[in-house]
């Protein structure tokens, strides 16, 4: 699919340099306002008002927080491993930001329409593990070492249910390209993969499998981005901020923004796989809701509602312990996803 930038600037280096810019703008805006949204939503759930001092709705809050963080003194502890200590936050953020390359915002705007898009996404976001481990080790602090070890164990283990539950859609579609997933689910809400995908009436059999897969994908990606109930790596009450204890100012902000950026990225992936990506739920019934601008609106609406669910879960549930986390992954989630893959395989054999 032609990218809108190559249409405008021709297929040369200028287009490719300009492509990440809208995505970068979106990521920054999102990270800024997701923090505010989280604070306001949590306040709403806890019967209080969130930030309202900067202006009536707290809209400038995060920008001013970022300014505050920029002007903080960069204090580093005594004997850190300087190269790794300085590089770690940037590696974590870069890894997550690179994952945005394959998110299809609309039918004409996708930064890089790789034909191995989904595989690329899961691989690239795993590089953040390296960054976290670097931060944990080089901070010269026992607590951050603990946090780093726990994070590595958690992220690496939860890669497996993530990949396996996404595998269900890959099997049904036969491709790994993100744009193709969005294209296939056209025709209205009942053609989305969560309701079985495009196909004839036999897809009703698939509906429970798809619901379970989407739920497991949601849970595993919560664990990937270290959100409660899986946020033991930054558990305030145990390890006093885990991996990012020794970081101050802008470096700490990088970790923070990486987490919010990853929230949106995984929501975008779940939307594309199961919820129809940028397709309108009304399909061809209401044609003007189908145009490229409206497609961006649908994609953002679906992803942002998933982000809302992530925030909601964070402020409701308590935290699990590290061994319970591992048990849940290896003893419960992986067998269920394997069963799902098996059942979808049987379905495809019988009905195709």
């Amino acid at each position, binding site marked *: 699919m032609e990218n809108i930038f190559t249409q405008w600037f021709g297929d040369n280096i200028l287009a490719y340099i300009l492509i990440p810019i809208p995505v970068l703008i979106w990521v920054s805006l999102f990270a800024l306002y997701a923090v505010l949204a989280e604070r306001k939503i949590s306040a709403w759930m806890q019967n209080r008002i969130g930030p309202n001092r900067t202006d009536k709705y707290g809209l400038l809050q995060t920008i001013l927080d970022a300014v505050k963080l920029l002007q903080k003194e960069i204090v580093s502890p005594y004997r850190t491993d300087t190269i790794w200590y300085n590089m770690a936050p940037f590696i974590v953020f870069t890894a997550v930001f690179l994952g945005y390359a394959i998110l299809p915002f609309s039918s004409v705007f996708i930064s890089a329409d790789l034909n191995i898009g989904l595989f690329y996404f899961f691989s690239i976001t795993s590089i953040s593990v390296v960054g976290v481990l670097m931060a944990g080790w080089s901070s010269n602090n026992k607590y951050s070492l603990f946090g780093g070890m726990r994070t590595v164990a958690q992220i690496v283990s939860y890669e497996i249910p993530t990949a396996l539950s996404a595998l269900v859609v890959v099997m049904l579609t036969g491709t790994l390209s993100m744009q193709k997933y969005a294209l296939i689910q056209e025709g209205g809400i009942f053609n989305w993969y969560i309701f079985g995908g495009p196909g004839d009436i036999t897809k009703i059999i698939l509906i429970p499998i798809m619901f379970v897969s989407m739920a497991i994908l949601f849970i595993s990606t919560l664990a990937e981005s270290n959100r409660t109930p899986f946020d033991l790596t930054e558990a305030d009450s*145990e390890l006093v901020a885990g991996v990012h204890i020794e970081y101050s100012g802008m470096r700490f902000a990088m970790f923070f923004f990486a987490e919010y950026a990853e929230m949106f990225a995984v929501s975008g992936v779940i939307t594309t796989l199961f919820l129809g990506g940028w397709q309108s739920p009304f399909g061809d019934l209401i044609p003007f809701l189908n145009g490229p601008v409206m497609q961006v609106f649908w994609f953002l609406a679906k992803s942002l509602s998933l982000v809302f669910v992530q925030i909601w879960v964070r402020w409701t*549930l*308590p935290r699990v312990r*590290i061994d319970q986390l591992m048990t849940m992954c290896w003893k419960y989630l992986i067998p269920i996803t394997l069963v799902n893959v098996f059942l979808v395989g049987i379905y495809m054999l019988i009905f195709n």
Partner: protein
Amino acid sequence: MAELRTEELTINMGPQHPSTHGVLRLVLTLNGEIVTDVKPVLGYLHRCFEKHAEAMTYPQVIPYTDRMDYLNSMNNELAYVLAAEKLLGIEVPERVEYIRVIMCELQRIASHLVAIGTFGNDAGAFTPFLYCFADREKVLELFEIVCGARLLYNYIWIGGLSHDITPEFVKKTKEFIKYFRPRITQVNNLLSFNKIFIERTANIGILPPDVAINAGCSGPTLRGSGVKYDLRKDDPYSIYHKFDFDVCVGEGRYGVAGDCWNRYFVRALEMEQSLRIIEQAIDNIPEGDIASAVPKRVKPVAGESYVRTESPKGELSYYIISDGSLNPYRVKARSPSFCNLSVINQISRGYMIADVVMILGSFDIVLGCIDR
């Protein structure tokens, strides 16, 4: 090639830590993530209460007792004042007794709300913490109507009270009772019966009942292990024998009796019982004075007295020795958290760091009480 070192790691959960409930230092010795030894280091909040009490007169000690267990001021004052009144041999009017019981039970609800909220906060559930504190605000409002202070009251005086209650207080207390009952159910549904929370706290830190009695544990810590002992029923003081309430015991509804969940749940159940006591008391307050005739300068005979009371944290007792002068000769406060904390080494062995945080939260300690 370097040898792989597998010795034990010593970690310091230092005095400043978000979940040690005050300035407590725990030196943990770990084998991987499993704890092999816990050594509490106390004394960061030692304010020499007992030495001060020897230089003050008897009524002047009361604000100091407030500040010992600062979440629980009414119960602290009551314990000290009962010990002093036993020495002086005075009887207080019945109106005073009723009001004291109401205040102590309201304080019990406030203290348990903090315990439950912060315990949930340690587990990672941030929302019940704020719900509990919102309810606690209502209790503190009631205290403010009566004596003007929200946290440290200096309200219960030797021989009576400092201020009388007003009809507005009675009306607002009745409204509070109606408001609070469904809130206990809400907190239970949100936190106590939550599967993840139960996984975190059930079967952790099991305290056998004989170890608990031998080590001097008391209060919800003891009752969570299944021992049905409540000083309000077994050694009644003030007018608790007139009220009808149950003693809540950890029965192992989830997990085993004696684990963190049962200790925590005893507190949730006790709030309901306190509400019952307040209901029975608020309608029947007799008329009368709020102070009996106590001389301006309190000078008891030479002697000593020891009074045990049931504070929300456990058995709070004061031992006063008087030598016949205006100042007490020796005041010893036996605090419940001091004895409860001493078992932490025994019961934390073999669990993980996350569990140590939960065990510490389930004891509900206040460092002001421990360090005095």
